[in-house]
């Protein structure tokens, strides 16, 4: 398995230009809101803002930056729905923190690692969302492992492709 443990000195930390930092999450939110009108199952299986959160968090390798990226993207995603604002925010904050913390420890530049990491974080995100929605907001939620794993795999595959595309915007520090 190509996941390798790296020391803090070995990992490269990237940064992004302001247009990319703002534009890419906005574009992800826009596509996430628009595509379900044409492809109704898209919203069921894909979560583009989550993929963008994971990517930025892993590339920056800073837990604080990661958690704030997740919080902002998650809150923005909450704004588009009608549920209380903060459910996606909490879930993506945790994912952002986790992804950036993992990025510090592991080399997550190759496709295999990215596939596994995205799958894992998708499930974590779904679990946190489920817990918060059910426990705090009292929403009716049903947990389905097959659906979760299927959606996780779909996101992981899309994530690998998307991450390679977004790699082009990375800037070395």
């Amino acid at each position, binding site marked *: 398995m190509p996941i390798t443990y790296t020391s803090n000195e070995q990992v490269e930390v990237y940064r992004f230009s302001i247009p990319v930092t703002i534009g890419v999450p*906005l574009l992800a*939110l*826009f596509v*996430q*809101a*628009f595509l*379900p*009108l*044409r492809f*109704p199952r898209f*919203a*069921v299986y894909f979560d583009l*803002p989550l993929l963008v959160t994971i990517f930025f968090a892993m590339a920056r390798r800073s*837990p*604080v930056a990661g*958690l*704030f990226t997740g*919080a902002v993207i998650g*809150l*923005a*995603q*909450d*704004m*588009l*729905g*009608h*549920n*209380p*604002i*903060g*459910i*996606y*925010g*909490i879930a993506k*904050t*945790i994912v952002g*923190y986790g992804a950036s*913390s993992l990025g510090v420890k592991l080399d997550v530049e190759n496709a295999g690692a990215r596939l596994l990491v995205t799958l894992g974080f998708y499930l974590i995100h779904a679990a946190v*969302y489920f817990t*918060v*929605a059910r426990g*705090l*907001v*009292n*929403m*009716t*939620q*049903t947990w389905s492992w097959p659906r979760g794993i299927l959606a996780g795999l779909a996101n992981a595959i899309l994530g690998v492709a998307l991450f390679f595309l977004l790699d082009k915007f990375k800037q070395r520090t």
Partner: protein
Amino acid sequence: MESVLGRYRNLVILVGVLFLQVLGLAMQVKRSGGTDAENTRLIRIWGVGAITPFERILVWAQNGTGNIWHNYFYLRGVRAENRQLKEQIEQMRLEQVRLSEDAAQARRLQTLLAFKEQFISRTVAAQVIGSSGSDLSRTVYIDKGENAGIKRDMAVMTADGIVGKVLIVYPSVSQVLLISDQSSGVGAILEKTRLQGVLRGTANGEVMLERVMSDEQVPVGETVLTSGGDQIFPKGLPVGTVTKVGKGKDLFLNIKIKPAANLSKLEEVLVLVENKERQATAEENVRVRAADILAQRLPSVPDKPATDANAAAATAEGSAKPAGAKTAAQPTGAATPATPSGKSPSGTSTVSGASGAGPEGKPAGAPAVKKNVAAPAGPATAPRPDATQTSPANEPPKPADSTAPTEPPPNPQPPANESGPQ
């Protein structure tokens, strides 16, 4: 202490950010017991304001491209389609004539029953430009908002059926809660069995009809309509069809509904911006045959109580012979107590005349609802037990009655069609 904070700085920040969000969530839930658009209006305006302009542009560009292609380039088969549509129009015209007759009859019956109708007097067409992007919040955005007269809780529908209601209104866009969302609720009624229930969405986007008792029989395929009980959707709009009926919990049935409108592929919708509730009135220009009026005044053989409803309806449609007067006895009985004196002075309008009012009929010079005013007028009405309820004593005879026979019936016994409630 400082060293601990410094050592676990990242974790402390994470906990702090999470705590703030949980606090925000708790405040929203506590204030509204669910969602409250007003409390979170500003932050939502920012979010929606950042996303919807792009969606609007994209939908506009997409439609523009599609229109150019379809209207100027891709015209194959248009001539054949045009011919086919013309034939269809002819057929529909014939159908319209029949339906207008039925509608006129229905209006007269509703007048008798003093029904209040809701009329959709104004709608605004809107384009669906976006969604929430989450299967846990089944909402869409439309390109019309406060500026177009949209208000919260207005009903949204397509030609096929209801879609949802307006949840949040922004100046130029609105958020619509679909009927498949789990926080949605619509008063619904089954078309044939007339069972009422509440339409709700589920977590996985299905639409269920709740609150129908498990001892009721609900056939698969039955049409579901709005009941009007929610004060949002006017009564009688198509909702969907029953696809599955199962045993639910708490003595209620589990009825799965397939929505009439395709909720997953919405493009254009109508927002019902104005509903008017008004008393149903019969058309003023409905023609009444003199034979019908005469038939009502004549004594007739009382109906058997167990008259089959279908047979009665068939007879009522058939002609304006005295038989028509007899068959109308059932609706009249039900209608008599509720007939408003303002609309129908005698309050004893019968269905027989209505049913016999064919296009070939000679105009009697009076609206259908007034046509049998003369019959109960005068002393003839006195012996009738229901006359005191339905016909005000100070009601003047209608001038129109001059065209109809005004003699009191030779037999004080009321005809079958004018008897009281059965």
